[in-house]
């Protein structure tokens, strides 16, 4: 029976609840998307192209980097390398959800991953650390974040002038502050604190000495190694 093979039960009520739970943070994402729409149109992308890029990629930081490389011609391999490097954190984020995702049929599993992004992943991963299984936030939260990102991009390409300088309002820090609040809200055993020290040091070293955009993956793997050798029995 497939129900036994893939026992994760999605509750549509919870998906809706998670949609509304991430609605406030999505308002900030609209502003961030507006900044992207403005940047993209200043680089000569048409409104349709900018909005299509946001809908298809749904990966803000890499989109900013991509339009930064825009010109009459774009070198393909450097562009692909930058997009891959910035988005490579998705590899680790997806892997960290695997203990839950293996209980979901492959079709649903990969469909759900289309909506994987930093904010909804951070919620899901943090709840998993405290023993709750929440893949609904990837769907419901991802959907509202995706819509906000597209809406923001649309506002930016048409009315970008309204938000000439998003940094003046601190909007470039939305994601950083959100992720920090998620990190501090999670459980902080001595093992996790040691992992954080190693991860912070590793990412700083990679940021200083390794190729650009490798620091997230290097730092996270370095932190993971702590867990590899220091298995906490009291976890869950």
């Amino acid at each position: 029976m497939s129900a036994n093979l893939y026992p994760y039960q999605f509750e549509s009520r919870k998906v809706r609840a998670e949609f509304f739970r991430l609605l406030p943070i999505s308002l900030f994402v609209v502003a961030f998307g507006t900044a992207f729409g403005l940047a993209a149109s200043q680089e000569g992308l048409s409104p349709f192209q900018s909005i299509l890029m946001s809908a298809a990629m749904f990966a803000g930081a890499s989109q900013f980097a991509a339009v930064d490389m825009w010109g009459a011609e774009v070198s393909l391999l450097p562009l692909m390398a930058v997009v891959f490097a910035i988005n490579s954190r998705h590899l680790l984020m997806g892997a960290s959800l695997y203990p839950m995702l293996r209980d979901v049929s492959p079709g649903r599993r990969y469909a759900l991953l289309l909506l994987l992004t930093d904010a909804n992943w951070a919620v899901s991963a943090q709840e998993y650390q405290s023993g709750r299984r929440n893949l609904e936030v990837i769907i419901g939260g991802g959907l509202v974040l995706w819509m906000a990102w597209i809406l923001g991009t649309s506002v930016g390409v048409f009315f970008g002038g309204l938000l000439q300088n998003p940094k003046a309002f601190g909007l470039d820090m939305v994601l950083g502050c959100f992720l920090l609040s998620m990190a501090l809200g999670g459980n902080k055993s001595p093992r996790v604190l040691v992992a954080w020290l190693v991860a912070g040091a590793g990412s700083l070293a990679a940021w200083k000495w390794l190729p650009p955009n490798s620091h997230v993956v290097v730092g996270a793997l370095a932190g993971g190694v702590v867990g590899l050798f220091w298995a906490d029995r009291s976890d869950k």
Partner: protein
Amino acid sequence: MTIETTSAGVLALIAIMALVTLVTRFGGVFVMSFVRINPRVESFINTMASSVLIAIIVPMAVAGDLGALAALAATGMTMLVLKKPLPAIAMGLVAAALVRYVI
């Protein structure tokens, strides 16, 4: 190899970038489906998961301006006191905006 940013060229670039991004979304899970999950592996991915956040934030703080530092400090303190993410983020943005307005 370069692609001209004609309308067809831009569509091709968007398709390629979307594909690369998709590979990153799918790849980690795909690889994990070949890994036997034992407690040690589970401990590794759990620790790695909480390390992702720190690995994003620390260089952001070090490379950022005073406004970025103020934002992270305000978010951190509010979070430790109130333990609620939204007020913490709001305080962070206000702090960044204030510091950048003053400087």
